[in-house]
């Protein structure tokens, strides 16, 4: 998957350089500038999350999101999903582990949904891009949506 991304990027970069070297340089300059602008915030977030995840054991999380935890569990699961940030290839195996340790399906669905769509911890970054109002509305709606997902998943599966 990463290889595909790199092949596409390098091919387009090559094509761009072939057509105009100065434009390509400009593109790379812009790329570096915006990447570096984001870097300190993202690095901080990643390092904070590492400590938080290490402090919580999967058993603890699974017990909060237990299959008998009901709406309260769904709420907590959404909130945990909203404040954490992890790549999907880490999140899904974790979700499977939590399920096997007794977490409920609607709770896990809420957790996954808000984990992917809601980003409390990246909210300052989102606000920088889209302004306070748009960022809060998108995150608020996505959080509500994670309850909807939990409800439907609980009924369907």
């Amino acid at each position, binding site marked *: 998957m990463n290889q595909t991304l790199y092949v596409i990027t390098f091919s387009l970069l090559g094509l761009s350089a072939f057509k105009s070297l100065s434009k390509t340089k400009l593109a790379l300059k812009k790329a570096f500038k*915006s990447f570096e602008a984001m870097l300190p915030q993202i690095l901080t977030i990643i390092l904070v999350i590492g400590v938080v*995840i290490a402090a919580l054991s999967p058993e603890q999380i699974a017990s909060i999101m237990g299959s008998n935890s009901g709406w309260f569990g769904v709420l907590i699961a959404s909130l945990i999903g909203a404040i954490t940030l*992890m790549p999907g290839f880490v999140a899904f195996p974790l979700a499977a582990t939590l399920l096997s340790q007794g977490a409920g399906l609607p709770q896990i669905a809420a957790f996954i949904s808000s984990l992917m769509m809601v980003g409390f911890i990246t909210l300052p970054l989102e606000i920088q891009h889209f302004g306070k109002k*748009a960022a809060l509305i998108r995150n608020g709606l996505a959080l509500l949506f994670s309850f909807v997902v939990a409800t439907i998943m609980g009924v369907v599966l």
Partner: protein
Amino acid sequence: MKKQTLKRYRMVIMMIMVYTFIYFGFKPLFVPAVNGSMNSLIELLIVVPPIFVLIGLLDVWVEREKMMKLMGPKSKGLGLLIAFLLGSVAAGPLYAAFPVAITLLKKGSSFRNVLVLLGAWSTTKIPMLMFESASMGLPFTITRFVINLFGIMAIALISEKLLSEKTILTISEKFSQS
């Protein structure tokens, strides 16, 4: 210049100090903490940089008129489809989608389409669906995917309704000079 850089990275430096403290004070916590951040760190350093290069190329090469036609307010179903597919084939964390979204806005994409892109990017990415079905099973994945299709549209439409045209214009204009 150097002092400014140091100031911008002060929180990162503080977190490195926290890790050092954990290493000496709470050793059992250290390895899980490093493992916990390592995956996101790898994602940040391997997956995110090419995305920014692609944003740079898009910014330099794609003309505003073209983008208007493809994803602008009058692009209807085509714009929606492009936004959805673009988000779904993407790689990388949601925060990498913000600059993509802004570049699209700057080039004339409608706000609704940008919201659809963010929605698809966050939750219907194809590589992620594969991970999801591997760990959670196909029924879980398919059910969630179908719900998400509606959810993404609903979030995009409601957000657009809730935001005044003025706010949306401010967001797009804020970046159009750069």
